[in-house]
């Protein structure tokens, strides 16, 4: 198979899978089989692409050209490869988890759920492999629309309200700001290609370029930079597998991925430095890190707490990008990976607790650890990874982000990163600690509570193990991250 075909097929398989899922909806076992097979095939294909990428192959495919000079173009590049690997691996794991969860929780409309899930993954891969900003925006909006039914899944008034916020903010920012920014970019430079060193340098006055960059950063609502972060907590009404894969990995990472792409390949780090815009914009990222952490501490609902934690962690990546030095960019790229594996484990844990013990609040978890030891053990490991302690993968990304602030001489930002780590401890560790060491109310022992379904447990163990393995063998991702960071 030629590399080009492989690239197109990797994106086409989820969409084909979606059709297959829709057709086999009447037979749940066959339907889930289709999901798992598609996810498995995608993972193998992404690995194969990665293998060829490592051998030094570079390839691009133009699918069609809807507007003159603006083709739908896909190409393989380090940052996109990294993102695709994360999405490809985690789709299979999450599918496994979702089957256990959706059945254990007796959810309705499961066919629609799996169809839209597959479409979301397909568009995520399209974002990862997008060769120009136009293609990326296409994938970005398909992702917005296809995740809407997943958020509104329950169909209750609360779910509809949450989904309305979700769609309103994501479409509002993407059409109101991002599309405008894209159009201005196109009007200025006549192209939307991703190029090393950017396409805007020399085309526009640095001051205006700075404002344009701000338009992008806030317009990419999926990156959840405050004050456009409200959609993420609102999306928590979705079933847990959605929160886990889409709202901790695919959707939000698509946001920060877009920010990184725009920073590196549209503006170029050198040009952005000239504009000076990141000097003040970075405080929005810093502010989001701290504020979101503080809000997370006040949330008793476990998923809401995790959602704000995600908002905070996303801004690490934005902050790293705005440092505009190799260490910062490496840290940002690595954090996409490290945070993905850790946060998905946390959400898996939250879902498992819901299915097995029907608990949603942190304050209700006392003493539950003895009944669900595996769940809380994996939760513990993932929490430590988010905090950034060795020997867990999260340590690497924090390390490089911190290095980046040092290299840039931004000591205040270093302080924010360190302070945030402490806040992470304060809002994440109480969960496993309460579960293992707390006493249940009235000393009631959870004798009737068992662990979540086996497929959920397998998924959690896999992702938690991945957090550990990523500390010892970060090489493949590290290489991709450094190569992306060095590209500018």
């Amino acid at each position: 198979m030629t590399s080009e075909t492989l690239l197109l097929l990797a994106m086409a398989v989820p969409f084909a899978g979606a059709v297959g899922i829709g057709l086999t909806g009447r037979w749940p076992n066959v339907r889930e089989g289709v999901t798992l097979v598609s996810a498995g095939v995608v993972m193998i294909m992404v690995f194969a692409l990665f293998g060829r990428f490592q051998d030094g192959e570079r390839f691009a495919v133009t699918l069609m050209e809807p507007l003159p000079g603006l083709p739908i173009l896909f190409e393989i590049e380090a940052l996109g490869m990294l993102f695709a690997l994360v999405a490809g691996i985690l789709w299979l794991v999450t599918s496994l988890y979702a089957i256990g969860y959706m059945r254990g929780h007796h959810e309705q409309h499961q066919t629609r759920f799996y169809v839209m899930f597959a479409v979301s993954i397909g568009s995520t891969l399209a974002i990862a492999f997008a060769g120009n900003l136009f293609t990326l925006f296409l994938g970005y909006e398909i992702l917005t629309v296809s995740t809407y039914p997943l958020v509104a899944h329950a169909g209750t008034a609360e779910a509809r309200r949450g989904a309305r916020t979700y769609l309103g903010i994501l479409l509002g920012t993407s059409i109101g700001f991002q599309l405008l920014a894209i159009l201005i970019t196109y009007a200025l430079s006549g192209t939307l290609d991703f190029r090393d060193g950017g396409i805007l340098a020399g085309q526009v006055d640095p001051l205006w370029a700075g404002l344009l960059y701000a338009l992008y950063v806030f317009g990419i609502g999926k990156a959840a930079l405050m004050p456009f972060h409200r959609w993420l907590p609102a999306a928590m009404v979705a079933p847990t597998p959605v929160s886990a894969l889409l709202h901790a990995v695919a959707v939000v990472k698509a946001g920060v991925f877009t920010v990184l792409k725009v920073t590196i390949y549209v503006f170029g780090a050198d040009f952005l430095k000239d504009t000076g815009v990141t000097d003040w914009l970075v405080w929005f990222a810093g502010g989001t890190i701290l504020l979101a952490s503080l809000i997370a501490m006040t949330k008793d609902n476990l998923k809401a707490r995790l959602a704000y934690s995600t908002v905070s962690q996303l801004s690490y990546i934005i902050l790293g990008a705005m440092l505009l030095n190799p260490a910062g960019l490496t840290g940002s790229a690595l954090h996409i990976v490290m945070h993905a594996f850790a946060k998905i484990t946390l959400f898996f844990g939250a879902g498992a607790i819901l299915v097995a013990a029907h608990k949603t609040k942190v304050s209700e978890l006392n003493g539950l650890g003895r009944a669900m030891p595996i769940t809380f053990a994996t939760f513990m490991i993932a929490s430590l990874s988010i905090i950034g302690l060795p020997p867990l993968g999260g340590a690497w990304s924090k390390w490089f982000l911190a290095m980046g602030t040092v290299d840039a001489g931004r000591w205040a930002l270093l302080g924010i990163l360190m302070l945030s780590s402490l806040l992470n401890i304060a809002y994440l560790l109480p969960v496993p600690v309460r579960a293992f060491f707390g006493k249940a109310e009235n000393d009631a022992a959870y004798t009737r509570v068992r662990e979540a379904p086996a497929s959920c447990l397998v998924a959690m163990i896999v992702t938690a193990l991945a957090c550990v393995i990523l500390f010892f063998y970060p090489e493949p991702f590290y290489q991709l991250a450094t190569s992306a960071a060095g590209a500018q």
Partner: protein
Amino acid sequence: MIESHLSLLLVVMPLLAAPVVAILPAGRGPWLVTLVISWLCLALAGWQLWMVVNTGTISYALGGWEPPWGIEYRIDALNAFVALIVAAIAAISLPYALHSVEREIPAQRVPLFYSAFLLCLLGLLGIVQTGDVFNLFVFLEISSLSSYALISMGRERRALTAAFQYLIMGTIGATFLLIGIGLIYAETGTLNMLDLNARLPAVLEHRTVHTAFAFIVVGVALKLALFPLHLWLPNAYTYAPTVVSLFLAATATKVAVYVMVRMVYTVFSNSFSQATPLDEVFLLLGMAGVLVASFYAIYQQDAKRLLAYSSVGQIAYMALGIGFGSALGLTATLVHLFNHALMKGALFMAVGAMIYRVGSSRVNDLQGLGRQMPWTFTAFFIAGLSLIGLPGTAGFISKWYLVLAAIEQQAWIFAIVILAGSLLAVVYMWKLVEILFFKGPDEHRQDVKEAPLALLAPTWVLALANLYFGFDTRLTVDMAQTAVQMLGTTGR
């Protein structure tokens, strides 16, 4: 033989068929004849476009009288493009019409309905084909009179008042147009568009010509429902039979936009209109129209009326495109002309399917229908995305060019208004999507079935066209650009 009379046949065929259809016995006969005629028209319109692209402008002298004395049909890229839109929408509406009309119109009136439909089609095609301003007025009256009749055949008695309202407003518009045409005839002694274009520059300074221009612009603006002259439109579209709503929404206002472009750029000229406050007026009214009409759409309780207000908003986009007075802006207008026909056609068809099954078009009655009629409303959803202008749909292409045109002139406020209009479209579309797909069905309507294939197939043809023209813009953008180039040269 056919080739040399192609342009005339497009008009004559429906003209000859209309009286025949009127005297046919009630039943499926009238429908069948109309269907055949409209498909023939589509074939001819396609052929005509192909000829224009390959061999250049067609000039056809009616009855052998040489222009400028006789009536000339002059077909260039712009006419051929708009004629194709009209013929294509008619051809797609008719398979849909069979069941929809049987349900909504008493059997004994069906032959008259199809007869009026053919007359309307003939009028619209005639407006597009002719190169003579008075002839254009005649065709405009034919299409208007037949559409008053068509609207008055709606299910509710309120259709009568709606038709009457449209009649009054439409007549005022037509009168203004006629006054304008009379004035320029008095000044130049000719009615042929090209001839006018050659003779008007000599008298451009005359106040009569300026007056004529004002009368013509206002008259046509009434017909194209430019905000705030749109008051007839919501009622007309709401109470008309579904087929009429969708046909008029997709074609009649588009043809009026064509007339505007033709009058401004060919009869008068770009340089003349630049000297008048036309651009500013269009920009201002366009901006107000996009915002106000879209805002009104949000609060409508009837799906057809909601779509009608949305149409007013979409027409305002086209006015903005003209108002930019640039090649890019005019391209955007022409591209949107085509794309809006696709999206509004599909949307009205889906609502028509709802009326067919449920007997109502009220928003509240949409509850849960998305699950009961999944095919109908998936098509509705796709067309809705196109209306919003999400990438991958035809609507995105229109928005892309419109905003680019605004940015080109550094008209930031208009760029923002256009995008804000998209967001308002999100609000009113999502209001429907939520009710359709995420609310349980009404207790009394547990057993609503999917619409019949005859309604579904045309809806899906248009819905898929919305996606197709989002990716392949060779027909839309290339034709629009050719037409704009041509207008630019004759305008000078």
